[in-house]
């Protein structure tokens, strides 16, 4: 990752972070999209796709209903791709997922903080809002959008800082086996999260049969491809 890559990644991460909740929810925040474009920015689409798929599986663990709290995997995937691109093979993969997971955790915390800040601002503006003044309404709303953009940029910057630090700090102390172990542990957990999250979504009703049929078909396909 060069300095010339940094600005496009930061801009992309900010757009992705804002898309998650605020504007326009067109799903560029999905890891598979965020990762692929980050890979394209770095000239390494295969790594972007690979990490995009890992975090897409983790995304299945989340059902964003009501005011539920969840990790933010969009900017996290961008940080993961930036990390993986800087290292070779399995080491990059393991470090990338780890950096992405930490970024996702921090991103989730910032979403909660932002909502609390917004709550306070809306509470303080209650009288203006109750007066029916459209300018006050727009001001409060635009402020929320702006704060989310700042939040997304901050999370992406944090993730990219981790990506920059990961290789010199962790890459040099991990042996080849250690790097494999890290990649196996994190990717295995992501596959499990995808399966468990989907089963939660499917439930015990008639869709479970469809899930089983799909799983059987997928296993047959894997056997056929070997």
């Amino acid at each position, binding site marked *: 990752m060069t300095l010339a890559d940094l600005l496009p990644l930061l801009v992309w991460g900010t757009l992705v972070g804002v898309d998650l909740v605020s504007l326009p929810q067109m799903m560029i925040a999905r890891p598979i999209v965020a990762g692929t474009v980050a890979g394209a920015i770095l000239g390494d689409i295969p790594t972007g796709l690979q990490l995009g798929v890992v975090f897409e599986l983790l995304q299945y663990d989340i059902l964003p209903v009501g005011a539920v709290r969840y990790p933010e995997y969009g900017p996290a995937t961008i940080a993961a791709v930036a990390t993986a691109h800087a290292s070779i093979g399995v080491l990059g993969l393991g470090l990338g997922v780890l950096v992405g997971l930490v970024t996702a955790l921090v991103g989730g915390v910032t979403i909660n903080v932002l909502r609390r800040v*917004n709550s306070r601002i809306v509470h303080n503006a209650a009288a203006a809002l109750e007066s029916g003044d459209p300018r006050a309404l727009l001001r409060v709303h635009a402020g929320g959008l702006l704060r989310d953009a700042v939040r997304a940029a901050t999370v992406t910057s944090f993730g990219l800082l981790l990506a920059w630090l990961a290789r010199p700090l962790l890459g040099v102390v991990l042996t080849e086996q250690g790097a494999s172990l890290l990649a196996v542990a994190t990717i295995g957990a992501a596959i499990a999260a995808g*399966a468990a999250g989907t089963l939660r979504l499917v439930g015990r009703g008639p*869709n479970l049969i469809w899930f089983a049929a799909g*799983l059987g078909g997928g296993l047959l396909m894997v056997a056929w491809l070997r």
Partner: protein
Amino acid sequence: MASVNLSLARALLRLFAVQGSYNYERLLGVGVGVAEEPLLRDLADGKYGPAVARGAHFFNAHPYLIGLAVGAAARAEHEGASPDQIERLRETLCGPLGSVGDRLVWAGWLPFLSALAMVTVALGGGWIAVAAFLVVYNIGHVALRWWALKAGWTHGTRVSIALHHPVLQKATTVLGSAMALAVGFALPITAQYLAGAFDSWTRLALAAVAVVAFLMLRLRGDRLNGLRLALGFGAVALIAGWIWP
């Protein structure tokens, strides 16, 4: 007619940012008020301000279907419904709009297409699979937002007619099954794709970790989630990898 269409288009554009000021006090209320405002501009002077204020009260629903509430509440304001009636209409719509939208989009359309994209990527479809996912998903996304707003505006206080539309009910059921089938199909193919980065012995270890992690998530799902588990596994692996000669 042209001015109504212009107001609807303005409201639709604002609906894309309906969650922009998400907060724990009014949830989506402020965003709903902002989206509804263009539809209230031609109300009489004494009615406009109170209607805008009502629009920004507490509200929560699925963001793609929230146009139903925006359109219906604005229409009710135009038809001279009482403030109590409009508040009741909004309260009544919160639950069903959230429930239908969550099943239709978050648990149907989105994971269904995401699973298809993952399968296509795993089979070598590359970035085109991702681009196709974005285009197809957003055709449904934008169509749903526009339909919701138009239906809300058309039906007003009788908006439940739209919510019980047979196509909406059928789509929810069909997409739930399609999602289950597609994600079930995608899981082994995706796992195989990710395992391609490892040699054969490491692939066995990957399978073992995935099984153990899956069992942990199923048995302790009340305390564990994918992120915590992956971070925990990663931390253990990092320490083990550090001391491994």
